[in-house]
């Protein structure tokens, strides 16, 4: 398999890099405090993880329904065609996120202090 020597080295390096990045993010993770939702790069709202709630993000033709329950957040329903945001599942740790590319919606968990208000809408 001498022919594939450098190919093998390359693939090994990629796997190693992926493992290191994953390990780093696993070790540095911490419980999140609230979910920050941005639409189109602009802040849409912030919702604490310790309060159960249901938010209709966007509201109009392009929407994502965000549910917060038992310290976890997930997208339950969405207008996007691929529904990838629903498949991305539940988030609870600092830095985890659910991203809906068609609706340009990002919901990310932020750690540290809770926001001053329960919800800040635009």
């Amino acid at each position, binding site marked *: 398999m001498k022919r594939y020597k450098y190919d093998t080295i390359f*693939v090994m390096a*990629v796997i190693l890099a992926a493992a290191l990045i994953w390990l780093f993010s696993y070790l540095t993770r911490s419980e999140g405090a609230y979910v920050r939702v941005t639409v189109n790069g602009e802040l849409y709202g912030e919702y604490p993880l310790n309060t159960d709630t249901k938010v209709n993000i966007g509201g109009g033709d392009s929407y994502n329904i965000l549910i917060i329950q038992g310290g976890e957040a997930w997208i339950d329903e969405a207008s996007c065609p691929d529904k990838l945001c629903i498949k991305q599942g539940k988030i609870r740790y600092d830095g985890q996120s659910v*991203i809906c590319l068609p609706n340009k919606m990002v919901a990310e968990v932020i750690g540290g202090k809770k926001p001053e208000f329960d919800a800040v809408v635009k």
Partner: protein
Amino acid sequence: MKKKLTGKQIAEYGLMTALAMVLSYIEYLIPFSAAVPGVKLGLANIVVVFALYRLGVPQAFVISLLRVVLMTFMFGNAFAFIYSLSGAVLSLCVMLLMRRTGRFSPVGVGAGGGVSHNIGQILCAMLLLETKRLIYYLPILLISGAAAGLVIGFTGGIVIERLAKEQK
């Protein structure tokens, strides 16, 4: 330096671009979607790998970029265009460099293309969505890009060998 395109070259460009588009379309038809956006096979890359080895660097660039532009006209929007363009350009550059070193087989070049395609897209998404958090997807995208790229490179390698024999 600038020479006129021969009829054969024009036919090659057309054939390869059409083939790349058909492969993109086939992939688009396969109802496969993983939890992480960006995990995909990248069938069209077979054509680009082939072009890189058998036709030449400008051909590979033209075919790849034409595919992105034409597929956008048919199925995409401006957002998807920037997104696929960033992946296509970065993977082309990386595959070209890997080919130039002369140390990698098409399998390695394909893997490099898959990995760099995903890196390009995630960088682009980080810029567009203004979030650094996407970096958390990087491990899975690196692995899936390498895996898909290996398959593509292997397939491309077979085509390169077989067609080389036919042509002589």
